[in-house]
């Protein structure tokens, strides 16, 4: 006999996105709809011209309490968490709530800094350090699984909520631009020599980005407009560390799993926010996976052309964008696209379009072979 737990749905009560596009969701969404990109050219002595989405050096993230002793990424986390909490219609005690973090490299840019407390290079320690700002001593959860970290942090949070271990969970993901990561992608010849163009025939690699996204989740909605997270399913290609499987079967497995767990048909997917990193292989693999799972007719877009690839933050930031797009019944255009560059033709969104949207799919794939598919739904 098969028994399943009756799962309560999980709702997004509040959120925050901090990227070079803006420090409020409204600013971010506005620029996405208007096809504005934060990806800019920057000259690097050894690597030439790099195209990336970076905060201006003068950017400040004004936290409620003094955070001068924190690093940029730590301050981003704190500021974003505070922003998300401030938008809640009721107070929550941040010292008592479970914090789930996602980051791939944390404070990596301080690796060579002899004056930096090297404990904070460990992301688990960094998370506790950030939690201490909120007087929070509950053991934080840190997910670090390459570019699917953000989506998986949401996966973990949903599980914790559905097991009634918590009533509210704060999920937050961030990564910052660093020479470390840029050099690595450069050595892979994976950096685009122009602002990246997902799914396009001329695409030539990624543009890196930085930012932070925070979600406040609960099994108890506070409004009919709270978007529901129906399912989050992960898989592994088990094929190659830094390139996706050529067949897309790993991602297809995750998508099929998410669709099944959400109790819907693939034809009900109204929009897809793809991982769309603009490498030759990723975008082709995603197209194949979309076809295999019967969702390739759905409008699809990638925001990597607007905010670059934000690594550990991507799964959270891009899920938040999708949630708002669903709420607003407005499709986000896929910037940089002009001619199809995948063997499977996709329905790429080229202009912000009003459309009745009920269900959206968010996909992510990462180094190490991980894939995650997440499904969002409007309550009514």
């Amino acid at each position, binding site marked *: 006999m098969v028994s399943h737990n009756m799962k309560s749905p999980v709702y997004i009560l509040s959120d925050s996105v901090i990227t070079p596009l803006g420090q409020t969701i409204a600013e971010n969404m506005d620029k996405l709809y208007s096809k504005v990109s934060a990806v800019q050219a920057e000259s690097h002595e050894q690597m030439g011209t790099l195209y990336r989405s970076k905060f201006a050096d003068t950017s400040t993230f004004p936290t409620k309490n003094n955070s001068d002793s924190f690093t940029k990424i730590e301050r981003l986390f704190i500021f974003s968490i505070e922003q998300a909490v401030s938008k809640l219609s009721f107070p929550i005690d941040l010292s008592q709530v479970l914090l789930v973090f996602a980051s791939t490299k944390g404070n990596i840019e301080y690796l060579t800094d002899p004056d930096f407390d090297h404990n904070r290079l460990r992301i688990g320690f960094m998370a506790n350090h950030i939690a201490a700002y909120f007087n929070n001593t509950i053991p934080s959860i840190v997910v670090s699984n390459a570019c699917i970290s953000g989506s998986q942090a949401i996966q973990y949070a949903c599980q914790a909520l559905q097991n009634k271990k918590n009533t509210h969970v704060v999920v937050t993901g961030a990564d910052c631009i660093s020479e470390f990561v840029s050099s690595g992608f450069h*050595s*892979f*010849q994976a950096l685009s020599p122009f602002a990246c163009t997902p799914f396009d025939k001329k695409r030539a690699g990624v543009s890196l980005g930085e930012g932070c996204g925070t979600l406040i989740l609960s099994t108890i909605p506070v409004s009919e407009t709270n978007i529901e997270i129906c399912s989050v399913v992960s898989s592994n290609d088990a094929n*190659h*560390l*830094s*390139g996706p499987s050529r067949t897309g079967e790993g991602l297809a497995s995750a998508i099929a799993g998410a669709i099944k767990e959400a109790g819907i048909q693939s034809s009900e997917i109204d929009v897809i926010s793809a991982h769309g990193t603009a490498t030759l292989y990723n975008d082709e693999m995603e197209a194949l996976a979309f076809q295999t799972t019967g969702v390739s007719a759905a409008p699809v877009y990638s925001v990597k052309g607007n905010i670059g690839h934000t690594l550990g933050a991507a799964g959270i930031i891009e899920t938040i964008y999708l949630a708002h797009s669903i709420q607003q019944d407005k499709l986000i255009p896929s910037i940089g696209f002009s001619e199809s560059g995948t063997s499977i033709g996709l329905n790429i969104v080229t202009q912000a379009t009003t459309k009745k949207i009920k269900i959206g799919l968010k996909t992510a794939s990462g180094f190490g072979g991980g894939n995650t598919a997440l499904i969002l739904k409007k309550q009514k």
Partner: protein
Amino acid sequence: MNQLITELKKEIILQLNLQGVTPEEIEDNAPLFGDGLGLDSIDVLELIVLLRKKYGIKVNGAEEGKSVFYSVQSMAEFVYANQQQQQQQ
């Protein structure tokens, strides 16, 4: 040229961590990728770094890489040709 080939074989083994492989076991004209030594895409990138570091030669991307790194012989010819060019300049 023979000296260059032997040198390249040693460098390849070192750079790519090919445990238990001796220079004598690598045939000059055997394909390095696929069935040959079984090298993969990351190995091509490492070989590109090797040529840059050791010989100051830039290989642009995977397409050029395919023909340059076909075998040790093709690598040696590429390096040799570049060295000739550098000497002339």
